[in-house]
């Protein structure tokens, strides 16, 4: 199926879901106001579904909207989004019957900042970016430049374990097998792990002195659904509301601990960060720890009990005296 055919099929399916009143809302991606960007499309109107697109720039994780919308929702989901949805179902935040998952097999999303860096131009100066198999063709000033796709995908896409949703109601297009490249995706983390404790702490201290505590990472995260976040507690006030690095760091450490077993490594926190803190180097580490210690992968099995509500009789004993 070509991309255009897939897009058409998606629009048809979305329209029929709305027409048959199987869903109240359709949540998907539409072209953004900037070149090579998409914007979430949330609609009850069947005429709007013609704006739905499928392209390599639909990086956002739409599962975030499920906890905010009332009624039945038809949602366009890449593999990683479907994991977030499954995780929300496990947490009883979303009822599976109220969601129609329209699965989209995904070959990875293109990180525009990586392209900008390689091309040496801002994205609005680039004429076209197209994906052709394992290459990305960038048209710039009348010439074409080919870049291997692995150099421009998001880091979390490189390690993708689930390109095609496992849990879905409809699947647009053929499933794609997973080809995770842990090495490439893990590069930043491996570098950090070579440092001493002291150096690592200094590294994070430095990164988080940039943090303005805008909470974009929290607000974009599908797993961060608490009505009241601990940072907003006043009695006791756990951390100061002014963005001092110490408190920024505590916020992020606790956020990651709260996300243990629910973070699906969708990379949204890092993408949303306005001051480019490598947040995925934290969330991915937690994701790996959860796998290493408890053999748990979030959002994979819909029947699995949430990580922190469950236990085995014998596990992790070596931490205890």
């Amino acid at each position, binding site marked *: 199926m070509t991309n255009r055919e897939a897009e058409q099929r998606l629009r048809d399916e979305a329209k029929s879901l709305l027409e048959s009143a199987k869903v109240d809302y359709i949540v998907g991606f539409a072209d953004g106001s900037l070149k090579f960007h998409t914007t979430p499309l949330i609609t009850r109107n069947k005429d709007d579904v013609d704006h739905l697109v499928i392209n390599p720039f639909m990086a956002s994780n739409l599962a975030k909207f499920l906890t905010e919308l009332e009624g039945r929702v038809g949602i366009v989901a890449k593999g990683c989004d479907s994991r977030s949805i499954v995780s929300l179902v496990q947490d009883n935040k979303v009822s599976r019957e109220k969601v129609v998952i329209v699965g989209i097999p995904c070959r990875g999303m293109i990180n525009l900042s990586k392209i900008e860096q390689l091309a040496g131009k801002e994205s609005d100066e680039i004429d076209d970016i197209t994906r052709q198999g394992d290459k990305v063709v960038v048209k710039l000033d009348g010439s074409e430049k080919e870049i291997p796709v692995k150099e421009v995908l998001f880091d979390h896409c490189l390690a993708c374990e689930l390109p095609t949703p496992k849990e879905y109601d409809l699947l647009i297009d053929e499933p794609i097998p997973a080809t995770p490249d842990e090495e490439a995706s893990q590069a930043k983390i491996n570098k950090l792990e070579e440092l001493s*404790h002291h150096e690592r702490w200094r590294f994070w201290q430095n990164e988080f002195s940039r943090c303005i505590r805008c909470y974009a990472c929290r607000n974009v995260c599908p797993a961060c659904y608490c009505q009241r976040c*601990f940072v907003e507690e006043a009695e006791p006030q756990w951390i100061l509301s002014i963005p001092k690095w110490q408190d920024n760091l*505590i916020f992020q*450490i*606790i956020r990651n601990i709260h996300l243990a077993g629910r973070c699906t490594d969708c990379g949204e926190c890092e993408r949303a960060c306005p001051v480019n803190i490598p947040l995925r180097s934290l969330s991915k580490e937690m994701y790996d720890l959860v796998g290493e210690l408890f053999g748990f992968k979030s959002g994979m099995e819909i029947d699995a009990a949430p990580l922190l*509500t469950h*236990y085995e009789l014998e596990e992790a004993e070596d931490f205890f005296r």
Partner: protein
Amino acid sequence: MAQDSEWEPKLVGFLCRWCSYAGADLAGTSRKKYPANIGIIKVPCSGRVDPLFILKALRLGFDGVLVSGCHPGECHYQTGNYRARRKIALTKKFLEYMGIDPRRLQASWISASEGGKFTEVTTQVTKELKEAGPNELFADDK
């Protein structure tokens, strides 16, 4: 805080109300000697210990944190300590990745009859914290 021979680590112990706190009590009533470095906070269950408590203690300048509860299978609430175990294990590993010395977060299972074990654990933990040195993680000067 300057590190000299006088320096003694400060340690917070979150002890569960049913086992470890009673264990500490027993150590006291049986006149066992344990380091005065530990300040004890009684919690209903080791499962009550939020990783936030640990971070907050470190942020306030305590040199280490000890979380202690009933032995596995002996929790007063059946499963609290199992849940604590998952949380603490993740927290410990994650804090180590962030760059916090793993010696600063310690955990143990101490039952109400183990006054001796309580003195052993606190002595050992205090010794390790002395080696780790003062907690300057959240100090402002770079």
